[in-house]
């Protein structure tokens, strides 16, 4: 909230600079987010009197003015049609930043310099309302009242010689949402006395209670309701000082009565509401829940339908306010109002919060009630407002506050063990010091010090305005705050017991590092996406009930659409040849699923996945090597290499040729017989959605399966003592025989002596029969217990040739 320094100073003596005060407030928990010197933008603007005026010798529409600005007289060339002798005007001096340039279509600011206009020097500018940002009038210079004083700074003239702090008030401190609240903290901090304004109310002999009949039906949600009546007020604009204060805290002045209720709100934090007394039917006020189906027009002239849960202020006929949130249009203070009723009430925070949420309203009043207001301040606030109304608007204040307070709220009593303070904070202070610190903010022990002396537990009475203090730990926090967080020791000698890190994080970073080394860039993408994308591959997408926009309304069910989106973004930026990866979660609605404790909650399933995305060329182009467009075997190769890297075996790649929503033609990846993902071409449906006209390849793998099955125990195997024997062989087989089939037959036939099979050539053409192909392999044989001789190898080769011929009808290519 905004705190005016001038205003604050009326409650506490402040003998430090604004900057230092801001720093000190921040250090006790009231973070000053910014400091604004209100008049700063009017530096170099000064009030002057036109003491001489003549026509510009070289321009018809210009005049030459001499303007007395107190200590000197400036020559200024002026283009305004309304410039006249003896006018009081606002002069911008050389160096001033004029807020709006009248000649700029966007009205941007500009800095005044010394210029010559058609040969005549001009040492400043006489400004219009628009140029100063004080109104919309561009037609001529702004003319001030005759009694304005030449030489007076414009900021001072406008009541802007104030400094305003933007203070971040945490939700636990509603007491600090006012100038007195902050002044209380400043007083404690600086060791000064808080100066609460004294009341000087002149009451008439008529009793307030004879003029209004108040009935609180729902005293649970409205534990206290009080009010005052002032008769015969004159509604007009507020005096300048009051307007300045309100403007400083960004409240728009409306009329004197409304301004005074706002002033008291910002002064002490108690929300008040002023009703036009004559419009309250039968002068009866009832506090109760709304009836079903009721509607209400609030001050902002919006119709609102009420629920039976909404606490309302009603008269004998109709609703006149939503309790604690906003008044009604029908009873608001207007220029013709004469008699007024001022409500000063205490509403239950939860009730106000529920209604404020329901209406989507957050008002100065509701914010304070929601966080917890001070039930003890009600009569004071009503009196204070009545007094100011009497002073400013005239009128007769009726005798006594009406105060419906059936069950008095007692201040809380909280126990504190001084030794607990030391335990929690790691400091050593004694109970006397604890009490001294708390006393600064009016938290006093309930017993005399002597009685407390021997005790290891002290009772403290908490003021009504501190709803946040409920238990011992809350008092400890106050002690810490007042002791100063930075005075608490910084203990860097913590006891250390090293624990092993969660292993899967190491493996993920191992995989990540490998991918980066292999030329992939890591992406991190949004897990919320358009419903149409998530539904493409799962009906069980998790929908967000209150999304920001429809294109982020559902959690992703696959990493593929997100990857394609990022690839599209890159293509649009002219980036070519992309290799990306992402580790991310996918989310599913699964009614049958039961919470796993640390991974997902009942009814929802979250799955960690890894995705690779490819676009463009498979390799860099060199001066003697052409680039080749990426194809699925590049992706498969990388996945195979990755699996080797992490010692994952028992993997299968099963081709499929069907098209699903996200992919078509690809390979299903199986780990230990379980589907773990796929390697595929992105489907046309998806490419069209993102308007991509080239192939995009992806591999998406369930990462938990990978981690579960990878070989984490690395055990040394002896190196072979005997030499490897190489044989090359080529087979001619029918076109439709897959390389995998052929390799499996060879491996099978080669038994355990066949160490490695490498396909090094595929040939189809003149040299072989039509419908056939030739596949050439390099075979490596090894025995761990002896050197293989020619005879043995020949025998194995013969078995291989026989099996290939017998099972696949393949022939040895000679």
């Amino acid at each position, binding site marked *: 909230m905004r705190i005016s320094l001038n205003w604050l100073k009326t409650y506490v003596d402040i003998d430090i600079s604004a900057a230092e005060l801001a720093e000190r407030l921040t250090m*006790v*928990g009231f*973070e000053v987010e910014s400091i604004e010197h209100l008049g700063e933008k009017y530096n170099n603007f000064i009030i002057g009197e036109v003491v001489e005026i003549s026509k510009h010798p070289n321009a018809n529409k210009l005049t030459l003015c001499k303007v007395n600005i107190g200590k000197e007289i400036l020559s200024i060339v002026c283009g305004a049609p309304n410039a006249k002798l003896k006018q009081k005007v606002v002069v911008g001096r050389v160096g001033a930043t004029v807020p709006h340039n009248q000649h700029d279509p966007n009205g941007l600011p500009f800095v005044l310099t010394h210029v010559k206009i058609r040969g005549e020097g001009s040492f400043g500018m006489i400004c219009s309302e628009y140029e100063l940002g004080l109104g919309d009038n561009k037609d001529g210079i702004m003319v001030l009242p005759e009694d304005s004083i030449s030489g007076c700074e414009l900021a001072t003239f406008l009541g802007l010689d104030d400094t305003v702090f933007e203070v971040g008030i*945490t939700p636990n401190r509603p007491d600090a949402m006012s100038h007195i609240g902050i002044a209380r903290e400043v007083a404690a901090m600086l060791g000064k006395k808080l100066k609460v304004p004294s009341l000087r109310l002149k009451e008439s002999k008529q009793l307030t209670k004879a003029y209004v009949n108040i009935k609180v039906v729902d005293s649970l949600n409205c534990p206290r309701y009080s009010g005052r009546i002032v008769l015969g007020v004159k509604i007009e604009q507020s005096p300048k000082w009051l307007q300045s204060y309100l403007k400083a805290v960004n409240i728009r002045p409306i009329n004197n009565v409304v301004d005074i209720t706002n002033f008291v709100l910002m002064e002490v934090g108690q929300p008040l509401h002023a009703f036009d007394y004559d419009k309250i039917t039968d002068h009866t006020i009832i506090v109760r829940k709304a009836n079903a189906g009721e509607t209400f027009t609030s001050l902002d002239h919006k119709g609102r339908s009420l629920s039976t849960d909404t606490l309302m202020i009603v008269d004998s006929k109709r609703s006149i306010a939503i309790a604690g949130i906003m008044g009604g249009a029908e009873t608001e203070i207007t220029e013709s109002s004469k008699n007024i009723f001022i409500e000063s009430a205490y509403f239950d*925070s939860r009730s106000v*919060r529920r209604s404020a949420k329901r209406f989507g309203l957050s008002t100065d009043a509701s914010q304070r009630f929601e966080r917890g207001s001070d039930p003890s301040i009600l009569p004071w606030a009503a009196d204070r407002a009545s007094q100011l109304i009497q002073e400013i608007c005239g009128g007769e204040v009726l005798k006594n506050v009406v105060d419906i307070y059936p069950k008095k709220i007692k201040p809380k009593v909280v126990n504190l063990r001084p030794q607990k303070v030391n*335990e*929690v*904070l*790691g400091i050593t202070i004694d109970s006397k010091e604890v009490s001294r610190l708390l006393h600064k903010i009016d938290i006093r022990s309930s017993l005399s010090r002597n009685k407390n002396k021997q005790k290891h537990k002290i009772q403290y009475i908490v003021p009504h305005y501190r709803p946040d203090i409920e*238990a*011992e*730990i*809350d008092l400890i*926090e106050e002690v*810490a705050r007042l002791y100063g*967080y*930075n005075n*608490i020791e910084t*203990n860097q000698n*913590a*006891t250390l*017991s*090293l*624990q092993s*890190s*969660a292993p899967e*994080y190491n493996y993920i*970073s191992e995989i*990540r590092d490998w*991918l*980066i080394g292999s*030329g992939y*860039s*890591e*992406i*991190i*993408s*949004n*897990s919320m996406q358009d419903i149409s994308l998530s539904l493409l591959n799962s009906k069980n997408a*998790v*929908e*967000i*009930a*209150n*999304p*920001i926009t429809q294109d982020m309304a559902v*959690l992703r069910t696959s990493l593929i659409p997100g990857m394609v989106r990022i690839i599209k*973004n*890159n293509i649009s*930026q002219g*980036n070519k040849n992309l290799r990306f990866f992402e580790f991310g979660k996918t*989310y599913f609605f699964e009614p049958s699923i039961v919470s796993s*404790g*640390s991974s*997902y*909650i009942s*009814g*929802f399933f979250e799955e960690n996945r890894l995705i690779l995305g490819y676009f463009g060329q498979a390799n860099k182009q*060199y001066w003697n090597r052409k680039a080749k467009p990426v194809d699925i075997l590049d992706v498969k190769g990388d996945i195979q290499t990755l699996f080797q890297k992490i010692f994952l075996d028992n993997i299968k790649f099963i081709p499929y040729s069907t098209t699903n929503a996200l992919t078509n033609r690809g390979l299903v990846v199986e780990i230990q017989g379980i589907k773990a993902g796929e390697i595929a071409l992105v489907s046309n449906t998806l490419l069209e959605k993102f308007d991509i006209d080239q192939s995009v390849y992806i591999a998406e793998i369930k990462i938990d399966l990978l981690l579960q099955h990878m070989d984490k125990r690395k055990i040394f195997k002896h190196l072979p003592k005997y030499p490897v024997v190489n044989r090359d062989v080529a087979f001619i087989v029918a076109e439709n025989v897959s390389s995998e089939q052929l390799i499996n037959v060879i491996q099978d036939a080669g038994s355990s002596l066949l160490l490695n099979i490498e396909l090094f050539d595929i040939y189809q053409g003149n040299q072989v029969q039509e419908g056939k192909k030739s596949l050439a392999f390099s075979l490596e044989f090894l025995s761990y217990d002896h050197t293989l001789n020619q005879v043995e190898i020949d025998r194995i080769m013969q078995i291989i040739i026989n099996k290939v011929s017998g099972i696949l009808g393949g022939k040895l290519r000679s």
Partner: protein
Amino acid sequence: MMNSIEEIKHSADAEINNISTSSKLDAFRIKFLSRSGLIAGLFDQLKSISTDERPIVGKAINELRTHVQSLYDDRKSKVDLSSKQTEPFIDLTLPGRERWIGSKHPLTQTMEEIQRIFFHMGFSIADGPEIEDDYHNFEALNFPPDHSARDMQDTFFITDKVLLRTHTSPVQIRVMEQQQPPVRVIIPGRVYRNEAISARSYCLFHQVEGLYVNKGVSFAELKGTLLSFAQQFYGSSIKYRFRPSFFPFTEPSAEMDITCFLCNGKGCKVCKKTGWLEILGCGMVHPNVLRNVKYDSEIYSGYAFGMGIERITMLRFGIDDIRILYDNDIRFLRQF
């Protein structure tokens, strides 16, 4: 016979000196040393001479062969050397054959760096769901229902009681529900906030949360741990401060600031002219939270802290718009 040996020796001695290329040297080898060469021819003739003379002549031929062989070897090493120097011309200024480079996302880099520091301080890692229930995200963390503290975090809801976690703190509850003290974990993860997207805020971001619960843990130790972290992460010369703040699940609560490393505390746009940068929120675990996980708050106490990875990453690398982190433009990613 002996004459021809001598002749061959002379011609070999003479010829070898004129040889400067490997092809000529090879011709020399074929002429003298190959199976059909002159020396082999001498051995063939050996059969036709008398058995008395044979050993003497044989020895002479052998000596000749050794001599010529050494001439050859000697010359070969010279020819090899010179022929290497006259290989076909290669333009060594041609670009080398580079490979594509990959990169680690800057958010991951920050995350890993933070994790590394806390690993070394004895923290292990914990994890939890992003789709979370109201109890773990709010209630167990001492946010009562209908409490204004909930407004601090605009929430995406799935149902009335299920939501996208607004912070990593619910994992604190999950860890303590499953484990008895001492507990010392950090919790990295993705969190969601229903806020308008702008240069300063995105609808999701990442946090690292920390939790330590044991006997006799104090605020002084919290300060010490976080100071050690900040010194390792931001440099040992930083100045720091702790100031009071509010989080429902910690009390006392604090925010830690360090001197702005962009302006050295002089005040700039990034630190909003204060000279300080807020780097994390922290506090002593609220006794209500300990009670909710059935820890005895009279025996155990603890601290918790949390920091935003995006914010730290943006500060570290001077990134001024959070959205660029999620655009994943390859030209951006390759800068890290």
